[in-house]
Each structure stands twice: as structure tokens, then as C-alpha cells.
């Protein structure tokens, strides 16, 4: 489904990402783990073509989209729930969702998308007329996810969607992600905490200092005594 190879890039002159390669198969849920500043969000920006500078190849279902711009990627079936949500706070829930569907080609599918998102997050349905900025943190995250789903993506990227949320909301969103996966959506989830990643992904990449340091099944990774230790070992300079 998603095939990224040798992706590099960054904001200024210096690269943040160095030859990142990863694959996500159709229907799979993959985690992207890594400590603060590893470059996970930068990779998400590179994948969605919102990073100022990048190199490497990106394929979606075999189609080469390395040079595609953000809106082409959305049209091709990729959607990102960005770090910090980036919902349009002065707009209503309804308008946020409508904008998420702007790339939807046929008008008729709009109602179907609304129903799907409201089925997933019934709380949004109760608040369609409310300004997005006045929603609770959990509701805002639901809106961010719902908005991304409005474009009917086949690949959903999520950048730390659980950050700062209460355990109950976390499990609510985890349940939603599981349902999405059952409905055939392919998922790439950026997360820092392994225990959360374990609940909704089967395979994981660990990123350190802008490069992929490790790839493993989430289950195997959980068997390791302490992931923070692992982060540390992998990022420490190798001694001869």
C-alpha cells in the first residue's frame, strides 16, 4: 500500500530525515515509535508533502507519488491527522467536517461520509453546530480524526492522537481505530508509548535521530525489558 524509500528532507539546510524507508501493507496497522525529536512528525510532513524540502520516493498502491503535492495525495487516498490536531477552531464541527470532504469527488458520497463519522464518534453528531475551539480535548481529537476520514482515505496517518487525553478517551479512540481497521483502512500510527501502540498495531518501526533504527512486530517489541533502555542504546554512539 505505502512504500517509502530513501526519504530525506528537513526544514532548513540540514536534513532531519536521513534515508527513511518503510512499508505498510494493505489493511495493516503499523506503529511508528520514537523519542521526542526523532523526526516522526517531520516524516509525516514529508509523506503529506507539507515539508519544505524532501527527497526520496513515495509510492501509494504502486503509483509513484514522489513529486505529488499535498492535495494530490489526499485525492490519491491518503489522509493525516496531524500533531496538535490543527482543527479550524473558529469553524463549527459541521464546517470542519465539510472541509475534510473537499477532495471528495462525487457530491453524493458526502452524506454517507457524515453517517460513517457520526457512527464512529456519536458525540460529534450531538455537536455539529458548536465551534470546534469550544470542544473538549478529546472531542477535538475525534473531530480531527473524523475530518480526516471525510475524504474517504484508504491510508490514515495519525500523529500522536492520544497525547494529553484521559485514559477513557484513549480507549474510546483506540476502539474507533480498531473498527476502522476492521473496515479495511490501512493505518500508520505515530506514538511514543509502546503500551498504546500494542493495543492497536501489529508491527512497528522505531525511529531515532531521523532514521529508522529498528523494525519489529509490536508484540516482540513489548517482550523487550524496557523500551526506554532500547531507545537509549540505539541512540548511543557505537563503541568499537
Amino acid at each position, binding site marked *: 500500500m505505502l512504500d517509502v524509500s530513501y526519504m530525506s528532507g528537513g526544514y532548513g539546510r540540514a536534513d532531519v530525515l536521513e534515508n527513511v524507508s518503510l512499508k505498510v501493507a494493505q489493511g495493516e496497522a503499523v506503529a511508528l515509535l520514537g523519542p521526542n525529536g526523532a523526526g516522526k512528525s517531520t516524516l509525516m510532513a514529508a509523506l*503529506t*508533502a*507539507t515539508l*519544505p*524540502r524532501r527527497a526520496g520516493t513515495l509510492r501509494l498502491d504502486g503509483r509513484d507519488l514522489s513529486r505529488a*503535492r*499535498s*492535495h494530490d495525495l*489526499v*485525492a490519491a487516498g491518503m*489522509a*493525516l491527522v*496531524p500533531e496538535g490536531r*490543527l*482543527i*479550524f*477552531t*473558529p*469553524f463549527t464541527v459541521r*464546517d470542519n467536517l*465539510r*472541509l*475534510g470532504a*473537499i*477532495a471528495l469527488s462525487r457530491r453524493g458520497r458526502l452524506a454517507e461520509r457524515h453517517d460513517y463519522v457520526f457512527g464512529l464518534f456519536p458525540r460529534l453528531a450531538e455537536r455539529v453546530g458548536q465551534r470546534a475551539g469550544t470542544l473538549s480535548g478529546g472531542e477535538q481529537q475525534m473531530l480531527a480524526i473524523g*475530518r*480526516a476520514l471525510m*475524504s474517504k482515505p484508504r491510508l490514515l496517518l495519525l500523529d500522536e492522537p492520544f497525547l494529553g487525553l484521559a485514559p477513557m478517551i484513549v480507549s474510546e479512540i483506540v476502539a474507533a481505530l480498531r473498527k476502522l481497521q476492521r473496515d479495511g483502512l490501512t493505518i500508520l500510527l505515530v506514538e511514543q508509548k509502546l503500551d498504546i501502540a500494542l493495543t492497536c498495531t501489529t508491527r512497528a518501526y522505531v525511529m531515532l535521530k531521523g532514521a529508522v533504527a529498528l523494525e519489529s512486530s509490536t508484540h516482540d517489541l513489548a517482550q523487550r525489558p524496557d523500551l526506554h533502555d532500547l531507545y537509549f542504546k540505539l541512540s548511543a554512539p557505537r563503541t568499537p
Partner: protein
Amino acid sequence: MSDLLELVVSATASGSIYALVALAYLLILRPTSIINFAVGEWAATGAFVGVAAQTTLAWPALDGPYWLAVIAVLVCLGALGWLVEALTVRPLIARGANITSPILALLGVLVIFRESLTMLFGADPLPSPPPFGFKRVAFGLFAGVPQQFLIITVTFVLFAAVWLFFERTVWGRAFEAVALNRRAAALMGINLRRVTTFAFVSGAMVAGLAGLLMSPLTSAHYMMGLPLAIQGFTALVIGGVGRVEGALLGGLVLAFVEQLGARYLPIPSGLTLGFPFVLLILFLFLRPSGLMPPREAR
């Protein structure tokens, strides 16, 4: 009393012109963050295109009717707006330039437009034929020349249409979304380049329309652009750069202050030209968000 009512008509008409220029700024500023001072020259260009379409100076047989002048202004200015965006703004944005670069490039465009107008049409003012003549008309208590009422009507209808576009259509919302957060808008699948193009095309059309509408009252003149650029910008600052209604309110406030001041304040008439600057400075210091702050600030 009739003196005052006449002033109301005349100030509303001038205010409408300022409001249109402010709207031209706003259409470009909101989605791109670019302040395009060339809108004043675009208004002047609109005035000249209108005159040229109605009085083809060399061949009177080709003189066109007013509606043709309106279409000519919209088509020419739309094309010029598109061209300016494609040649100056787009290459700079593509190279990741700072936002000040396009603003400076557009100041260059301003000079190019002014010099081209002087070369093409000369330095003398060209009279612009008013579509409904000069005969004074009165609507109830309010009296003025027909052109003033035309200006007011067109402006209010246009503002209503633009307001509906922004508030009620998904593409209007998309424009606002780009203004709020470019990255989030791109992630929705909004084509940022297309929005930028549309902003410049529509901004140029509105500016050209302002020039065409005011030219029967002032003649088309190569120096008309700069005062309009300043008055429109002041109207924008007074109204608040956030919202369409603000541009209209700002234009009207500026025109009423100008005309009431000229009529009732004991100052030489030449100094009334300074009113926009005084208001501009007052608002920048005391209320930089304008009378109608953008939604996100409330």
C-alpha cells in the same frame, strides 16, 4: 439639512469605492498573507480600460456600450491579476521565499503599472462617460448624481455576494481555512496554488471595478492609484483585516470622517488629504485589530 443629506450620499459613494479597494486587498491578504499595494494601480487600470472600451479615441465607430466596458474591465483585470500572480508571486513562493518578498515584488509591479498607464494614455486626465448621465436625481430625501447611486448599489450587492461566498459556500470556507492555517488546509486536499490564483484574479477584478465606477466622477488619471491604495488600506485597517463586512464598514467610516471633517472642521481643504493617515495611525496604535476583528481573535 439638505446639505447634510447630500453629504451622506456623497460620503456613502466615496466610502463604497474605498470599501471596494479594501475588499481587493482583503481577497488577496486573507488566503496569502500578502499585502498588495498594487491594487490602487489596478483600480486606475480599470478606469482606463473602461474609458478605452467606451471611447475608442481614434475610431468613434468602435465605441462600446457601458456593459461592454464592465466586461472588458473584468476580463482585462482578471487576466492581469492572473499574470502578476504567475510571474511574480508564484515563483517566489515556490522557492520558499519570505512573505515580504512578494510584497516588495508587488511594489515593483505598482511602478510598472503606473508607468505603463502614463505611456499608453498620457498624463492628462481622460473624462469617463457616466452610463446614466449627470442629471441630478433624488430618492426621497437623498439627492445626488446617478453615478453615486450606481456606485452604492453595485458595492452593496457585491459585498452581499462576497459575504455569501465566504459564509455559505464550501469554497469560501476553504479560503478562510487557508487563512487560518495553510498546512491544515493543504492536508484537507485544498489546492493552495489554485486558491492563490483565484485570490489575485478576484482581487484584481474588484479593484478594476472600483476604478471603473469612480472614474466618471474623477476622470481616469494616472495618479489616481496611489491615493486609492492608501484610502483602501486605511479602510481595511479601520474595519479589521479579518472580515468582509469590516472592509465595507471601514470604507464608510473613512469617507464620512473625511467629508464631515472637510465640511465642518476649520481646517484648510488641502489638509483633508491627511485624514486617512491620521485615522490609519490612530487605529494602528489604539485598535490594531480594527472595528471588526477576525473570528479567531474573538
